[in-house]
């Protein structure tokens, strides 16, 4: 038996014993996420148990080094773990901007001290992070940010306003872009800093979205003290790290395009809902729309696969994340427009038990943000035109 086979067997056994039964299927509402953090209210004891057990093995961040609490798994092992988790339909033990965003940035750009300080609590789900990038005047033009950090020797005093802070009201720490040299040119003079959301002067205020939920905040910074040892990378050189994180975010958002809805393909769902006659779905125009979506969706899924395979095999051209982000989010928006048509008048019911609290229309409205957050579709097209096609 190879090492990998042995690893698979061990993993399977361990999961069998340690993954609680209730963590092996989705909740009806579809909100299975576990965010962790100081003030997090777990949906169940099982949810906490599952997070803690996985964290203890470092498997909430399986490919991070063990010295920072990670799982230390090789690529092949990581893949095995994912497969075994999928096999038992296990939920993610911990969802976190720490694991997805600032963690990888710290691993790549952070000092040893920052790694030691921040990574282990992220792995254990103790600290929940949020991102302070966008500002009211600087949406697509991220580098146009105005929030300032004034140098006070061993610390900065930060003032300004951030917007689109994901779960800013629930997070414990923020990674935040500040203009720390107002003389420098646009992209220069920006630093990436970390601070506790309980620092005096930090005030997150939830923004209500058209979907009715408030996953984002405006965050006001009034004379917030930021220690200099909490700057990631060099002072005034945070833009490189910010761009790295943006690419990272883009890939996350772009990956959502081709997911199935509740395990059914769009076509199966449509056929079931609309019925068929003479072998064809009852609404011929909607059938054309569904089939066209499925064809595009299949091609997109294969493209995400191909891009990954190319990177793995060293053939990757890179820079395709803008395309995946652009196409994936547009596809996802189209999918939800089609879902609305499939579900007819049921699809616009906003509240009540039968509609799971208006899950479909609220999620549909939420998808409209996919092509805005993490860089609008327009920005992605600019990036493709300039960076890939070389159009000036």
């Amino acid at each position, binding site marked *: 038996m190879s090492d990998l086979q042995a690893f698979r067997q061990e993993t399977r056994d361990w999961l069998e014993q340690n993954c609680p039964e209730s963590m092996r299927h989705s909740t009806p509402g579809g909100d299975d996420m576990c965010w962790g953090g100081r003030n997090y209210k777990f949906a169940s004891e099982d949810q906490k148990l599952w997070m803690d057990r996985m964290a203890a093995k470092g498997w909430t961040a399986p490919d991070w080094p063990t010295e920072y609490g990670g799982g230390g798994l090789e690529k092949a092992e990581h893949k095995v773990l994912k497969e075994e988790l999928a096999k038992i339909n296990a939920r993610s033990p911990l969802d976190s901007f720490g694991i997805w965003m600032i963690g990888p940035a710290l691993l790549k750009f952070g000092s040893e001290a920052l790694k030691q300080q921040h990574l282990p609590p992220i792995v254990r789900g103790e600290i929940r992070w949020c991102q302070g990038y966008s500002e009211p005047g600087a949406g697509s033009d991220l580098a146009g940010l105005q929030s300032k950090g004034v140098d006070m020797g061993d610390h900065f005093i930060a003032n300004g306003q951030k917007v689109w802070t994901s779960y800013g009201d629930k997070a414990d720490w923020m990674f935040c872009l500040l203009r720390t040299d107002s003389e420098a040119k646009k992209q220069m003079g920006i630093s990436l800093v970390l601070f506790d959301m309980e620092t005096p002067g930090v005030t997150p205020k939830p923004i209500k979205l058209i979907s009715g939920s408030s996953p984002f905040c405006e965050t006001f910074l009034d004379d917030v003290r930021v220690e200099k040892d909490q700057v990631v990378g060099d002072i005034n050189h945070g833009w490189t790290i910010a761009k790295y994180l943006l690419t990272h975010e883009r890939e996350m958002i772009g990956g959502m395009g081709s997911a199935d809805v509740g395990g059914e393909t769009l076509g199966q769902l449509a056929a079931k809902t609309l019925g068929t006659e003479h072998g064809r779905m009852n609404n011929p125009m909607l059938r054309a729309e569904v089939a066209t979506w499925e064809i595009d969706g299949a091609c997109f899924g294969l493209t995400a696969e191909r891009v990954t395979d190319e990177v793995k095999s060293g053939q990757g051209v890179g820079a395709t994340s803008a395309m995946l982000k652009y196409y994936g989010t547009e596809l996802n928006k189209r999918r939800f427009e089609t879902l609305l048509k499939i579900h007819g008048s049921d699809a616009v019911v*906003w509240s009540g038990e039968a509609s799971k609290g208006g899950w479909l229309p609220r999620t549909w409205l939420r998808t409209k943000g996919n092509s805005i957050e993490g860089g609008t579709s327009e920005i992605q097209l600019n990036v493709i035109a300039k960076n890939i096609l070389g159009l000036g």
Partner: protein
Amino acid sequence: MALVLNEEQQMLKESAQGFLAEFAPIAELRKQRDAGSQTGYADNLWGQMTDMGWAAILVPEAYGGLEFGHVGMGQIVEQTGRTLTASPLFATAILGVTAINAAGSEAQKTELLGAIAGGEITTALAVDESIHHAPTQISMTAVKQGGGYVLNGAKRFVADGSTADKLIVVARTSGEAGDMQGISLFVVDRTAAGVEVERVEMTDTRNYANLKFSNVEVAEAALLGEEGKGFKALSTTLDAGNIYLSAELLGMAQQSFDMTLQYLKERKQFGVLIGSFQALQHRAADWWSQVELCKSVVLKSLQAMDEGDKHAPVLASVAKAKLCDVAELSTNEAIQMHAGIGMTDEYDIGFFIKRSRPAQMMFGDNSYHTDRFALLSGY
């Protein structure tokens, strides 16, 4: 007839603009929503509208109406699309009046149309039974018994269904789901015994209901028109409904375009107005062109109804199919071009998409009407 408004129609349009801006702007929709309003509009709104004669516009003079015609009424409805104004105008003054006028006896017309014109009653049309529009697929039954009928069945997606005084109910007196024959219309009090009304909140926070009829007994006089021959009047009513929904969607497409154009001229990114970016300019120019197309087909459809043009049914489907398409484009582009703030509840632009989709779906969406258009065209 020339595809332009005459002076009177133009005046009505402007007067509607003024009235709605003052008494029912988008801010009012927000207020009603936040207050959890059951009707979706201010208590005195319908009274003001009927005072202005809006309930009587489609009612023939013989029954106490103004008989001002569809083009005029279309201007008002288009304006309500711009202000997203909810009111009984659609379900009562358009659907109710059209159905009663098309199917009713002299006595019914005299009584009901007069009462509508005078603002005394409101109505709702109960047609669909499943989640998709299918006017021949009526399973609800009306069985003759004693001197009247007994109704059993269920209806969904009934606009104003939770508040209207009179329900105009489409039921089957013979035949099977799918048949055009055997469909009959009944006027039923919403508060009649056996009528169960479940209010349904939708994305546009208007007043919809699912209805359940359990052995509801009505008198013979409740039958609107001839027994089993109601499909024709129903069709006329649905065509009118779709043309007015198109007019409303046109107002929404125009207003969301205008607001977005304004934003393109105000918002700066990278140190310049975003309206200076050519990619957005071209999208805006195409969008504007699409709205221009919509104006033409809506006006033509309204004229066709006024003229009793035999192409009105085809035009109804052309208009609704096109307007669904352009309203979807408009409400999506409006959010995308507003970007971040377009996603916030605080900004008004998001109300357009939430009203647009129910309006698109009511009485058949783009796919339904494209298919119907093809069938009516012989393919």
